[in-house]
C-alpha cells in the first residue's frame, strides 16, 4: 500500500485533470443528470442488501457534509459529532414513542435541540485554541453518550425501541427501498444546502476565519459568532440524519453514537478532502463501502483503514479530492 501511494504521488497531474473535468461548468449538468439517474436506478440493481448499505452511505453523506461545515469550511476540529446525530435521533425517539408526537412534528424540535446543543458546546469553548476545542468536543460527545446510557427517558443501555414509522397521506413509510429514496432525497438536499452555504456571505466568512482568524477579525468578521454559526449548521445536518436514522431503524441505542462513529464521519471528511463537497461525498461512500468490500480480511479492515488515514495525512494532507482554495 505504501509503495502504491508513493508511485501515484509523482503524477498528480492526471488526477487533477480528471477532477478539473468534473468541475467544468459545461459538463456539470450532464454530471448531475448521471448522478440522479444512478441514484434512482440503484436499488433494483444492487438488491436488498446493497440497498441497505447504500442507504447507510447516503446517511453518511449527510453527516459528512454537516461535519464538513465545521471542519472543512470553518477549520474547527470536532471529535464529538455523533452527539448531534444522537440529539436528533433521541429527540424524535422520545417525542414519538413517549409523548405520542407525529413523526413530522418532531423534526422542528430535533433541529432546535441540536441547535441548542451546538450553542451549549460551542458557546463557552469557541474562544479556546483549536486543540483544546478538539478535546472538549470529544468530552462532550462522551457526555451525551453516557447520558443516553443512563437516563431513564432515553431507555438507558438498551435504548428506545418501537419508534413508529412515519406516514405520508396515509401511506406508511417502511422497507429498505423507501428509506433508500428518502435518504437519497435528503442527501441531494444536503448537497444543495452545503453548496449554497459555501457560496454565501457566511460561507466566505468561514473560509476567511479558517484561513486567517486574526485578519478576518480585523476585517470586521465576528469570529466567535461565525464559528458558532458553523457549529449550529453542522449540528442541524447531524440532527436531520439522526431523525431519519431513528425512523428507518425504529430503534436506537447508545452504541450507535460512540466516539468511533464520530471518527468515521471525520474520516469521510478528511479522506475525501476537507471543504470540497464532491470530495466529502466520495469520502462518505469510501468509509461505508470500503469496509464492505474489505469484509474478507475481517478484523484487519479497521487497521487497514487507520493506516490509510495516516498515509493520506502524510502524503496527501488535503484529501483525495482537495478543494482548489486550500
Amino acid at each position: 500500500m505504501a509503495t502504491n501511494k508513493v508511485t501515484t504521488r509523482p503524477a498528480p497531474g492526471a488526477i487533477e485533470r480528471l477532477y478539473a473535468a468534473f468541475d467544468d461548468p459545461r459538463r456539470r449538468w450532464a454530471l448531475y443528470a448521471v448522478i440522479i439517474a444512478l441514484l434512482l436506478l440503484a436499488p433494483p440493481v444492487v438488491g436488498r442488501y446493497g440497498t441497505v448499505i447504500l442507504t447507510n452511505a447516503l446517511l453518511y453523506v449527510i453527516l459528512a457534509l454537516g461535519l464538513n461545515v465545521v471542519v472543512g469550511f470553518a477549520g474547527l476540529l470536532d471529535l464529538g459529532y455523533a452527539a448531534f446525530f444522537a440529539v436528533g435521533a433521541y429527540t424524535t425517539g422520545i417525542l414519538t414513542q413517549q409523548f405520542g408526537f407525529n413523526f413530522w412534528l418532531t423534526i422542528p424540535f430535533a433541529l432546535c435541540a441540536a441547535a441548542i446543543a451546538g450553542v451549549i458546546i460551542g458557546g463557552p469553548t469557541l474562544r479556546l485554541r483549536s486543540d483544546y476545542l478538539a478535546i472538549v468536543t470529544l468530552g462532550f460527545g462522551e457526555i451525551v453518550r453516557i447520558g443516553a446510557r443512563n437516563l431513564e427517558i432515553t431507555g438507558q443501555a438498551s435504548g428506545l425501541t418501537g419508534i413508529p414509522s412515519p406516514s405520508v397521506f396515509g401511506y406508511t413509510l417502511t422497507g429498505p427501498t423507501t428509506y433508500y429514496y428518502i435518504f437519497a432525497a435528503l442527501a441531494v438536499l444536503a448537497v444543495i444546502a452545503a453548496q449554497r452555504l459555501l457560496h454565501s456571505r457566511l460561507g466566505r466568512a468561514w473560509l476567511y476565519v479558517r484561513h486567517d482568524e486574526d485578519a478576518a477579525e480585523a476585517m470586521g468578521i465576528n469570529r466567535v459568532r461565525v464559528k458558532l454559526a458553523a457549529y449550529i449548521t453542522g449540528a442541524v445536518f447531524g440532527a436531520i440524519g439522526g431523525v431519519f436514522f431513528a425512523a428507518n431503524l425504529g430503534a436506537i441505542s447508545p452504541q450507535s453514537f460512540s466516539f468511533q462513529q464520530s471518527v468515521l464521519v471525520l474520516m469521510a471528511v478528511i479522506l475525501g478532502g476537507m471543504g470540497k463537497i464532491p470530495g466529502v461525498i466520495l469520502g462518505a461512500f469510501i468509509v461505508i463501502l470500503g469496509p464492505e468490500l474489505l469484509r474478507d480480511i475481517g478484523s484487519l479492515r479497521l487497521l487497514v483503514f487507520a493506516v490509510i488515514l495516516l498515509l493520506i495525512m502524510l502524503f496527501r494532507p488535503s484529501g483525495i479530492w482537495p478543494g482548489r482554495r486550500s
Partner: protein
Amino acid sequence: MSLTDILIQQLVNGLVLGSFYALVALGYTMIFGVIKLLNFAHGDIYMVGAFVGFGALSLVSGTIGAGWMGIFVAMFVAMIAVGFLGVVIEQVAYRPMLSAPRLSILITALAVSLVLQNAALALTDGQVTAFRTDLGFGGVSLGAVFVNYTQIVLVASAIVLMIGLELFVSRTMYGKAMRAVSLDKDMCRLMGINVQRVIAVTFFAGSALAAAAGVMAGVQYGRIWYFMGFLIGLKAFTAAVIGGIGSITGAMLGGLILGLLEAFATQIPHIGGEWKDVFTFGVLILVLVFKPTGLLGKSEVERM
C-alpha cells in the same frame, strides 16, 4: 464503615488512580511543551505499554517469577520498547507535519491513535487479556480500611519515576535543552541545540512514563484490552490541563487532584459509578472555560 474510614479509603483509591493519571499526563504536557502538539495517541501508547509489559512478564515469569522482581523487569522492558515506539511515531508521523496547519497534525495524531488501537484490536481479537501476577493479597489495616501492599508499591514506584523525571529535566543537559526548546525553538536552533534530538528524547521519556503507567494499571486491575487507553488518555489530558499544560509539576499535581476528585466523587449520590466520567469532563470544560492556563501554567499570548 464510618465517614472517616470512607474518606481514607477514597484517599487511597484516589492516590493510586491519581498516580496513573499523573504519569500519563506528564507525557502529554512534555510533548505539548516541545512541539505544541496535543498527542492524541498518548493514551494508546499507555495501552501498548501494558501489552508489552504483559508480554515481557510472560517471558520472564518462568525464570524469575511474576512477583515484584518480574514486574519491575517487565516494566523496564516496556518503558524502553515503548519509548522507542514513541520516537518512531514522532519521526514517521509528526516530524513531516510540524510545519503543516495545526488541523492536519491533530488529525495525524488521531490517525496514529487509531492505528495503534486497531493493531491491538487485530492482535488480541478484541478480547480482554488477563494480566496475572504472583502478588499476594497482603496489606496493612488502617482502622476499617485495608490498604493493599500492591497499591503502596505502585504509588511509590510512580513517585520514584516522577522524581527521576524531575531530576532529569532540572539537572541534565537534555532536560535543560528540553526546557529551552519549549520556550523558543528557533532560538535554540541558532544556539546550536539539536532540536530534533531533543524532541525525540522528549517523546522517549513521555512514552516510557506512559508505558510504566500501563504496566502498573495491568498489575492493579488485572486485565488489559485494546481500548483501555481511550478513557485514560482523555482523563490524563484533563489532568494536564488542570495543572496547566506545559508545566511538569502541574501535570503531577493535576493527576493527583483529578484522581482524588474522582475517588471522592464516587461517594456523592448520582455522580458515582456511571456518571463519574461525565463529572471528569465537566471539570475539564469548566477549567478550560474559566482558567485555561490551569493551576501552574503560564498564559500564552498568541502572536500573529
